[in-house]
């Protein structure tokens, strides 16, 4: 701001610059020390009762899900509702749902970092955590849906005594690499960004065990100028690479469907379709996680401000509108293609046996995000929370609509067959929700929720004054 003011004074009389003023990053003029205390107190304080309740519920769900997976492995994929012609159903639906949800996290932490959107700092850590855990949940499915899990190593190009190699031209193999790379890169981005904050927890630790554990994971970080120099370079590089992943992973996942000949799948719009849907559902998940977190830990209210949530809502609105556009284009393309099977697939989608899935999906995803045009909706957080959950439900139905309703109306009408989910399908899906929340609750308890070092660097007065003055003098005419 000081540069701006000096320039303005030099030219003519001072114009009103208040409109350029950004909303504060941290409310109530908090100083760096307060930020450290507020964030660390969540990890250092006593475990609250709600945490134990939430943890036991989600761990139980995860346990049931794990038991279902074990049952599926020892019995066979017949325990799922999937059957000819619907060979992919809840497994791939949930895989796409989870891996897509991850994308908003990467976008908020990487793409918004590269574009210097400072507001994203406060919510980046939570979003990244969501990304990592969502990919872990997604990763459950590809491994088990192959049926004979003990052959999972066939997916990787491992030299073997059969002399066999995987088919590198298959999108299913691209998927393996895309998801593995996504999990690796986003975990590294998450962990590496956390090292300085873990060092703060190490320094503040009072018990020996805590000091030892945080000492190990913070790798002996000292915050020297040399370390920061390499760290900042690494952060930019990782942000760049993660930003590429935001686009490539869903593109590759969408080619699983798009490169096949099934009507309803065989569309060039799919990469964009999957990408916007991904960021849309991810923004909804970020809101679903942040709003209760602010309630549970009131000190976060100054860090994750209503203005930050408002911006996520706007991102959700934008992506939701893109999703609406894609829905309309998809229908238009089906009609405009003049392909009887393509037209038939979409006619059956909305009139067939499973019509209620697409109708639920469209009615939620076309209406709910549009409510975020209104400031009154965006500022009413309980409403935002409910709407965000609805958006995710809508997105799950969208993934189901794409995967299942296309498959059950394939090219051979005699094989058309309605899909019914089995109890194992349902419990495995709730199991992944359990896994997600178990990991997320552990994250709340053991890791700083906000990137303290990055946030402190942007607080007013945190940078040297004379550096900016020098800069200002240089810019003076």
């Amino acid at each position, binding site marked *: 701001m000081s540069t701006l003011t000096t320039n303005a004074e030099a030219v003519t009389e001072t114009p009103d610059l208040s409109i350029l003023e950004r909303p504060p990053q941290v409310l109530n003029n908090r100083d*760096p*020390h307060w930020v*450290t205390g507020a964030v660390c107190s969540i990890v250092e304080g006593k475990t609250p009762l709600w945490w134990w309740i939430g943890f036991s519920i989600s761990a139980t769900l995860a346990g049931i899900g794990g038991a279902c997976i074990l049952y599926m492995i020892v019995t066979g994929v017949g325990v799922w509702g999937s059957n000819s012609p619907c060979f992919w159903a809840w497994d791939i639906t949930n895989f796409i749902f989870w891996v897509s949800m991850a994308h908003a996290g990467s976008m908020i932490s990487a793409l918004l970092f590269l574009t210097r959107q400072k507001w994203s700092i406060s919510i980046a850590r939570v979003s990244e955590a969501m990304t990592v855990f969502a990919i872990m949940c997604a990763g459950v499915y590809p491994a088990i849906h192959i049926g004979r899990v003990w052959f999972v190593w066939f997916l990787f*190009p491992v030299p073997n005594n059969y*002399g066999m*190699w*995987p*088919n*590198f*031209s*298959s999108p299913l*193999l*691209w998927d393996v*690499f895309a998801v*593995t*790379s*996504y999990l*690796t*890169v986003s975990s*590294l981005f998450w*962990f590496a960004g956390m090292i*300085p904050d873990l*060092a*703060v927890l190490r*320094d503040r630790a009072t018990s020996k065990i805590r000091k030892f554990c945080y*000492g*190990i994971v913070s*790798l*002996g*970080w*000292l*915050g*020297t*100028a*040399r*370390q*920061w*120099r*390499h*760290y*900042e*370079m*690494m952060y930019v*590089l*990782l942000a760049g690479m*993660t930003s*590429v992943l935001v686009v*490539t992973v869903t593109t590759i996942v969408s*080619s699983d469907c798009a490169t096949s000949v099934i009507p309803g799948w065989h569309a060039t719009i799919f990469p964009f379709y999957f990408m916007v849907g991904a960021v849309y559902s991810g923004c909804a998940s970020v809101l679903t996680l942040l709003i209760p977190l602010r309630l549970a830990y009131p000190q976060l209210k100054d860090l994750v401000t209503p203005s930050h949530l408002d911006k996520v809502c706007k991102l959700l609105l934008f992506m939701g509108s893109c999703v609406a556009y894609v829905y309309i284009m998809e229908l238009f393309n089906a009609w405009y293609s003049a392909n009887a099977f393509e037209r038939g697939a979409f006619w059956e989608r909305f009139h067939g046996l499973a019509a209620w899935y697409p109708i639920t999906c469209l009615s939620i995803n076309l209406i709910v995000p549009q409510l975020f045009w209104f400031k009154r909706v965006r500022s009413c957080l309980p409403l935002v929370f409910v709407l965000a959950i609805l958006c995710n439900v809508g997105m799950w139905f969208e993934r189901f609509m794409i995967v299942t309703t296309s498959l059950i109306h394939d090219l051979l009408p005699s094989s058309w067959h309605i899909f019914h989910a089995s109890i194992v399908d349902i419990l495995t899906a709730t199991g992944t929700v359990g896994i997600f929340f178990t990991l997320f609750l552990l994250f709340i308890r053991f890791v700083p929720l906000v990137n*303290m*070092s*990055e946030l*402190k*660097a942007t607080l007013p007065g*945190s*940078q*040297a*004054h*004379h*550096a900016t003055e020098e800069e200002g003098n240089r810019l003076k005419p």
Partner: protein
Amino acid sequence: MSDHLSISEGHHLPVAGCKNESLYAIGARFESPDALLRATAALQKSGFSCYECHTPYPVHGLAEKMRLPKSILSLLVLGGGVSAILIALSMEIIPTSFIYPLVVDGKPTNFSALPQFIPIVVALTLMIGAVTAVIGMILLGGMPRFNHPMFAWDLFERGASRSFFIVVEALDPKFTTASVTELLQDQGGLDVTAIHQETFEEGARDLKASDKE
């Protein structure tokens, strides 16, 4: 090392670490990034080279003041990325075109299959690039290191999340306790302390406690 010991003994600075061990450095605390940058400039002007600034967050302009070169990490990541491209391409081309040609959907297996190799090349390049970036950052930053003389300085431990520290190492050719202490104090350095190499003996802690009093 024993030279440093004899220098420090003549001086009455608060001591961190065990006094029987060799002197590692003299450290000072600063309350603002401005003070830190001024002191760094003064150190640089006096010709010191073996010193380190510890900050709770990256301070803009500090690396320039310290005349640190640009991080070579980007070069390493470029190397990692290029080798990943070569690894991925050979991993795909050798089986598909030579040792295990598999014709599915009539897709080509010769070099005209190159476009279908791109997704895996992208994925592997990003993965290996990211691994190089993180491992490179850790190693270039002198980590992992779990014992460091700085950990013996309890003031650093307590203040690392909010204060700024300058530590002038005893290895510096221009180092004398008197000159460094004077310089740091002139620049507004607080709690100027002689930091000794860390030991885990009980005696070291007792000594530290008595020094504080």
